[in-house]
């Protein structure tokens, strides 16, 4: 009902948006800021497609209201690459075919980034546990896990 203006930093860029309380962060990212890389799957916290990073930690953007986030620093999938240069995790997904239709990919990339920032060389069990909350309906989990293994290797070897 009563709208409020909130200030967000998304991928390093400051934004001011005026939002009604019930608007989710996902909707504000997509509709107000035009950052449509954050996908909407289930819209009730089950599928993980809308995962973004808040202060580096993975969160479901469909379970946050934008009005709560005044002062927050967020990373969306658009913030991973450096212009045309893919982030090492994206590059690993590209190289190992870690995606099919790509719908779940933004959420998985950010979940993987949070995992590798916290644990630079996870084993396969840890990887599977970390992405357990991200549904891939193409069911390409095997290549996704391989992509994260490859990304971890690239990171630790550089």
């Amino acid at each position, binding site marked *: 009902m009563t709208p409020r203006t909130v200030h967000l930093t998304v991928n390093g860029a400051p934004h001011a948006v005026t939002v009604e309380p019930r608007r989710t962060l996902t909707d504000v990212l997509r509709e107000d800021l035009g950052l449509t890389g954050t996908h909407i799957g289930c819209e009730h916290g089950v599928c993980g497609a809308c995962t973004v990073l808040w202060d580096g930690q993975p969160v479901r953007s469909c*379970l946050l209201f934008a009005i709560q986030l005044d002062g927050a620093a967020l990373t969306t999938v658009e913030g991973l690459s450096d212009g045309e240069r893919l982030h090492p995790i994206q590059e690993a997904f590209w190289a190992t075919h870690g995606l099919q239709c790509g719908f779940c990919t933004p959420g998985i990339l950010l979940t993987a980034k949070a995992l590798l920032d916290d644990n630079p060389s996870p084993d396969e069990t840890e990887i599977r546990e970390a992405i357990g909350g991200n549904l891939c309906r193409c069911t390409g989990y095997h290549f996704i896990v391989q992509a994260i293994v490859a990304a971890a290797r690239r990171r630790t070897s550089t």
Partner: protein
Amino acid sequence: MKPAPFEYADPHTVEEAVTLLAAHGDDAKVLAGGQSLVPMLALRLARPSIVVDVNRVAGLDSITPSGTGVAVGALVRQRTLERWAADRLPLLTAALRHVGHAPIRTRGTVAGSVAHADPASELPALLLCLDGVVVAQSRRSTRTIAAAEFFQGPLMTALAPDELVTETRWKLPAAHAGWGFREMARRHGDFALVGVAVVLTLARGAVADARIALFGAAATPVRAGAAEQALRGQPPSESALAEAARLATTGLETVSDLHAPAAYRASVARTLTARALADAAARAKDAP
């Protein structure tokens, strides 16, 4: 899948929060981590006229150990407690790893899960197992509610509409106690079909104290009093543990739903209880 319109308030003190709750009563919903409330809003299973977001309330985010227990502020995230408890209260860490997934636990709060009181949730059963209490504050009073009295039914608790949970307090088992945690879910991170948490204390080769709490089995988390009593004084033999598992699930009013009929839940509960008791007995160190 969009919530109905609501007003929004983000108080900065407990006093402001409970004043809002006193003014709006049943029309208000407290928003902490939002990992249960926001889906309910999206599905319009909850339609509060005002959401009181307590995330900016100061002083509710600390974990404070005392001699025999630990006080967990209402805004402590599940992920934070999961990490804190890893070498202090591994039973809690084991259980927390079954709560949703890492991104859910990053945001979800310990107190929020307790106050939400989903009968299939891990944390309410853990609070019951560890003889915990809930601290509830309103403009009228501050009171403590034992876990045994707190959970009254599915999503129903002893909290009044004007009360805010400010803290949960957990008793630490003795250092030599053993623990067990077993859960069955269709997929990891889903709500449990049924699960069980166990703490066993041994002395001179026999069970000195047993605590068994089941979740997902009935309308609330339940302590298996008869089984706990039967174990006391017994050596933790396979037959004694099997008998305790039988007693723990005898008379249990298991629920039937889309995922599992009541008889199946009861059967799984018995098997998991026996396994959790065996895990706990193996981990327990004998005290003289």
